[in-house]
């Protein structure tokens, strides 16, 4: 691609049948306690 660089390799909609273990951190419990954000959390399976 000459004009486009895709920054991530994995898609959210890939392999959704094997995801959803629920072991990840609860969003609000991480650092913020006021503003829910999940995009900055890690998946426990990775």
């Amino acid at each position: 691609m000459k004009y486009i660089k895709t920054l991530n390799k994995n898609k959210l909609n890939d392999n959704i049948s094997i995801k959803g273990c629920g072991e990840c951190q609860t969003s609000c419990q991480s650092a913020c306690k006021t503003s829910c954000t999940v995009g900055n959390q890690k998946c426990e399976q990775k």
Partner: protein
Amino acid sequence: MIHVFNIKELYFAVDTNSGLVHAVDKIIYDLLMNERFKDENKYSELYDEYDENSVKEAISEIQYLIDNNMLYTEDIKYENKIQPVIKAMCLNMTHDCNLRCEYCFASQGTYNGEKAFLSFETGKKAFDYLVKNSGNRRNLEVDFFGGEPLMNFETIKKLVDYGRSLEKEYNKHFRFTVTTNGLLLDEEKMDYINENMDNVVLSIDGRKETNDRMRKTINGKGSYDLIIDNYKKFINKRGNKDYFVRGTFTSNNLDFSEDVRHMRELGFDKISVEPVVAKMEEKYALKEEHADILKKEYEKLAEYYIESNNDKNKRFEFFHFNIELDGGPCIYKRSAGCGAGTEYVAVTPSGELYPCHQFVGNEEFIIGNVEEGITNRTIADKFKNVSVNDKPACRDCWAKYFCSGGCHANAYNFNKDLNIPYDVGCELERKRVECSIYIKTVRFYVNN
């Protein structure tokens, strides 16, 4: 759904449903804007700026992404498979505080009620409730919160021991956090916390004048001078373990990037500064009129962040600029919301359960107690159907899978409805996501 934006000289296209982020040349940005690439009458307008061959070549790249489900990806069809079990708990160790912060959502620690300390017995029942209601989930999170939790330090120690004793029996792992204002942080507590707490949140708003305007002692004086040396000492002893210095910004410090800078210059390298959660009538609340100023402030902070992180001695982490493009949560997690009332509860000293710490004191939100568990299903169920695809404002938002729907307390405070998010909060969240992508891209170009 896609979102195109630019910051400075960099241009982006985010594909909401695949989560893919494309750094693009301006020609692609111009073609995607208003979907010009779909209509020759529209894209031919660009021939003044780009030659025709380049425009057609760029359109073919856009088409390649579309054909390969990387742009304009269809909605994801899924059924929520995460069983809602309680896996995180905010334990209010005290309803009392040794500070009198003006913006305190907990009404200076008492949550509009009587001063109270959580007993070991109530804490034990809370832990028992947590392990028994967490299903197959192994990792459990407990935040010792308040009021000021270190006022009840001996009970924290007993509860940590009790939690560890439950781990083997129930095959669980507790992750403990303490959130403190730092006033009682002496050497003994520092050592204990460093040994036993997975994370520590140290409250400070930034510059002395910012901090002291809101974070006051019982006598009405500023608290900055009383905590700052404790924090520096604590961080020096903390090693590589997690912590955050965490501040709140209000309409009084719209230039909050200066507070972040101040904290970095003091030597702190894990910083979180967050917008206040407040009722609209409070004079320090953040309102629509502040949104543009704050968005510029996030961009200013992003520049400072990039500049600092180019130098290994100045590097730091800003909580809201962390973004996981590949190692982040799955779609189930991203759509489910913060988990308040479904996988996260707050416990008061008298053993009541609330959906989260932000609702404590508003008795209509009591959902149960540590002995009987969740008993008020009418309220608890309201927190079940608040995923990003349940809420109209979220459903059509490009950032929904980065944000997960925003803070329910904010939604309730401003709109009296859990399903209508606080729009200023949304605007700021979208800006934070844009800035995080911008920062990631600058790094990408530096490394490649």
